[in-house]
C-alpha cells in the first residue's frame, strides 16, 4: 500500500494536484488502494478521464464509488424495486426511485414522503453519534423534498443479547436516535429489534423518517438553468468522517491504514432544526430551484448528483467553502462528512432574498459557483483547476458488480421451524428461550418528542428470527 501521499501532507505545505499537473505526470503513484478502490476501478477512472485522476478527482471517485455511496454490489438487486413497479402501484406514487425520498399522494391535496436509510458501521464505532447522525441524514432527505418531517421509526439488529459489547451498542444507538429526534420534535412512532450473533460487530441501524407536504410544495433536487448560483449553507465544513465514507465504509472494515482525521461525525440537532425551518421558509417564499442534502461523501456527492440530475454542468470554487478547521486540504473538503449542511440552486435574481432568509436563521452561507452548460463538473482551488469530470461518471455510472451468490442452506431448517411444531398454548407467564432474544430495549433513557409519541408498535409481538447457523 502507498505510504506518504498528497492526501496526508502537513497543513500549510499542501499544494493541490491540478488537472494540468495530472496530465503532465501520468506515472505518479496514487493511493487508490488506501482509499478503497480496486486496481481495475482505478484503471477505469483513468480510462474515463483519458489521464490519471488528480488527487481531488481520486478523492471524489473513491468516496462516490465506495459500496456505501454507490451500492455497487447490491444495485443489481435493488434495481428490481424500480423495475417491478406496476402501473397500479404507480397510481398514487408521485416520486419513485432515484430521488432523495419517495412521495405518495394521500388525497385531499396532501402527500407523504418517507425514506429509510442505514447508518450501520458508524453506529458500531460510536453508537450514540453514529445513530444520531443517521437520523440527521434521513431527516435532511425529507426536508429536501419540500416536506415538514413529522416522525421517525427505527429497525435495529444487534449482536447476541448476552455478548459483552452488545449493551454499549444498544444503549448508544437507542439514546442517539431518541436524542436527535426529540430535539427536532419528532416522535419515534415505531420500532423493531432483533438480537442475533450474526450482527456481532456489524449492527444494523435503520432509521426511517416521514414528512408531510402539500402537492404543490414538492421539490426535486437538480441543478438546472445555466447561470443559477450554487450555494452551500448550514454548518461549517470540518474534518468529520473523512475516514468514514472511504476507508471505513469500504468493502472490508480493516482496509486502510491509520487516518489522521476522525472517522466519526458529531451531530448538532439544534443546527438541523434551524435548517428545517430555514429550508421550509426558502421553499415557501420560492427562493430556491432545488435543495440537496449533504450526507456521505459531502460536497463530492452533492455537486456530482445535482449536476447529473440537471443540465450536466457545474463550476465550483472550492476555496469559498466556510471551514471549521482551516488546515483542511482541498481533497479533505471534497470528502468531509460534516453534518447539517445543504446545497441549494438559486436563481441570481433571488440570491439577495435567499441570503436574507438564511441570515435571519443565523445559518452560515457561501456561494460556491454556478450551474453551467458545459456538461462538466469543474472545481477550482484558489484559481487552479483541480477537478474536471463528467458528473455522471462520478455519481451515476459507477462500477456495478455481480458478486458470487450461494444459497444459505441453513435457511431451510429455519423456515421449516414454524409454530406448528410447538406444543399447545401455554400460559403467558412462561418465557420461551427465543422470546428473550427479541426483547425490546427498556434500559436506556426514554425521551419523548411529543404527546403522540406513546403510540408504538410492540416489537415483542414480532416473530423472532434467530438463524441456527451463522451466515
Amino acid at each position, binding site marked *: 500500500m502507498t505510504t506518504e501521499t498528497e492526501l496526508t501532507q502537513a497543513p500549510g505545505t499542501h499544494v493541490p494536484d491540478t488537472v494540468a499537473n495530472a496530465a503532465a505526470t501520468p506515472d505518479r503513484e496514487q493511493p487508490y488502494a488506501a482509499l478503497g478502490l480496486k486496481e481495475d476501478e482505478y484503471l477505469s477512472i483513468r480510462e474515463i478521464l483519458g489521464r490519471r485522476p488528480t488527487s481531488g478527482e481520486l478523492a471524489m471517485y473513491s468516496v462516490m464509488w465506495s459500496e456505501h455511496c454507490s451500492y455497487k454490489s447490491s444495485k443489481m438487486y435493488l434495481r428490481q424495486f424500480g423495475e417491478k413497479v406496476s402501473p397500479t402501484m404507480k397510481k398514487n406514487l408521485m416520486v419513485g426511485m432515484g430521488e432523495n425520498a419517495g412521495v405518495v399522494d394521500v388525497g385531499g391535496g396532501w402527500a407523504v414522503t418517507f425514506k429509510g436509510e442505514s447508518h450501520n458501521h458508524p453506529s458500531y464505532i460510536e453508537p450514540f453519534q453514529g445513530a444520531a447522525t443517521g437520523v440527521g441524514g434521513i431527516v435532511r432527505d425529507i426536508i429536501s423534498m419540500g416536506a415538514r418531517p413529522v416522525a421517525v421509526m427505527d429497525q435495529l439488529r444487534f449482536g447476541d443479547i448476552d455478548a459483552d459489547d452488545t449493551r454499549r451498542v444498544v444503549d448508544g444507538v437507542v439514546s442517539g436516535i*431518541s436524542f436527535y429526534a*426529540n*430535539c*427536532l*420534535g419528532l416522535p419515534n412512532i415505531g420500532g423493531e429489534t432483533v438480537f442475533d450473533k450474526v450482527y456481532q460487530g456489524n449492527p444494523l441501524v435503520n432509521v426511517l423518517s416521514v414528512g408531510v407536504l402539500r402537492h404543490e410544495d414538492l421539490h426535486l433536487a437538480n441543478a438546472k438553468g445555466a447561470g443559477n448560483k450554487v450555494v452551500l449553507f448550514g454548518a461549517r465544513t470540518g474534518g468529520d468522517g473523512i475516514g468514514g465514507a472511504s476507508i471505513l465504509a469500504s468493502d472490508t472494515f480493516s482496509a486502510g491504514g491509520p487516518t489522521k482525521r476522525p472517522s466519526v461525525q458529531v451531530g*448538532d*440537532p*439544534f*443546527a438541523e*432544526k*434551524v435548517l428545517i*425551518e430555514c429550508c421550509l421558509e426558502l421553499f415557501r417564499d420560492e427562493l430556491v430551484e432545488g435543495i440537496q442534502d449533504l450526507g456521505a461523501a459531502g460536497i463530492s456527492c452533492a455537486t456530482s448528483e445535482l449536476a447529473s440530475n440537471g443540465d450536466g454542468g457545474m463550476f465550483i470554487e472550492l476555496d469559498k467553502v466556510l471551514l471549521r478547521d482551516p488546515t483542511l486540504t482541498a481533497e479533505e473538503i471534497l470528502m468531509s462528512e460534516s453534518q447539517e449542511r445543504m446545497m441549494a440552486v438559486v436563481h441570481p435574481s433571488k440570491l439577495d432574498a435567499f441570503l436574507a432568509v438564511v441570515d*435571519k*436563521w*443565523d445559518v452560515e452561507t457561501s456561494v460556491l459557483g454556478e450551474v453551467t452548460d458545459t456538461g462538466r463538473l469543474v472545481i477550482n482551488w484558489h484559481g487552479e483547476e483541480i477537478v474536471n469530470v463528467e458528473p455522471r461518471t462520478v455519481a451515476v455510472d459507477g462500477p456495478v458488480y455481480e458478486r458470487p451468490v450461494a444459497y444459505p442452506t441453513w435457511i431451510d431448517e429455519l423456515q421449516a421451524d414454524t409454530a406448528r411444531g410447538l406444543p399447545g398454548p401455554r400460559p403467558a407467564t412462561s418465557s420461551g428461550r427465543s422470546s428473550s432474544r427479541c426483547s425490546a430495549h427498556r434500559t436506556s*433513557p*426514554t*425521551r*419523548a*418528542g*411529543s*404527546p*403522540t*409519541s*406513546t403510540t408504538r408498535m410492540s416489537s415483542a409481538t414480532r416473530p423472532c428470527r434467530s438463524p441456527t447457523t451463522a451466515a
Partner: protein
Amino acid sequence: MRIGVVTFPGSLDDRDAQRAVRLAGATPVALWHGSHDLEGVEAIILPGGFSYGDYLRAGAIASLSPIMTEVVDAANKGVPVLGICNGFQMLAEARLIPGAHTRNAHQQFIRRDQRLRVENAATDWTNGFEQGQEITIPLKNADGRFIADDETIKRIEGQGQVAFRYVGVNPNGSFDDIAGVSNERGNVVGLMPHPEHATEPGFGPDTPAAMSSGVDGLTFFTSVIAASLKIEAPVK
C-alpha cells in the same frame, strides 16, 4: 385579544401554542426572538422546545435573546407572560421567577400525562380554575427538576407563588413537588407540563370519559383572556 408566541431557534411547540390561543378565542401573533418588537400584544407565551439545543443550560442562551429584554420589561409592567417547559426554564434564567432547573433526578427524559393540582387560581393564567382543582396535561422534559434554596422555597410557598404541584408522582424530583411557579404579582407563570397540548378533543390526554379527550389546558388561555377583560373566567 392578541397574544404573542415567541419563536426561538429550536422552539418546537410554538405552532401548538398559537393554535391553543386560537382555540381559546384570541388571535395568535408570531414573535421572533431576534427582534425587539412585541407588536403591541397583550400577553406573551414562551413556548416549549429545545431552544439553542438546550446547550449550556436549558433556556440559558434563549434568555439572552433581544426579545427577552422586552419580555422582561413588559412582565414588570404587568403584561401576562406564560412560560411552558423550555419557556419556564427561560423565565428562571431571566430571573422573572425564582429558582432554577436541573436535569431530572432519574437522569432520563420523561414523557407522560401528568396530574397536577392548581395551587393558586388567582394568577392571570389560572383564574378559570378552582383553587385545588386537579387537572391532567402532558409532560415531556429532560431538565425539569425545579430547585431553589430553602429560603426561596419557604418564601414562594408562603406567598402563594407555587401555582401547580405534581399529584400522584413527582416525575423529575422537583422540590416540594412544584410543577409551576408564578411571580409575586401573578402575571408571570411558568410550568413544566404543556397546557397547549391539551386544548382540542381528540388530541389531549385520555380521560375516564374518552380517549384523548382531555382539554384541561384550554383554561390557561381562556383565563388570560378573562384577565385582560378584567372579568371572571367561567369556572370549569
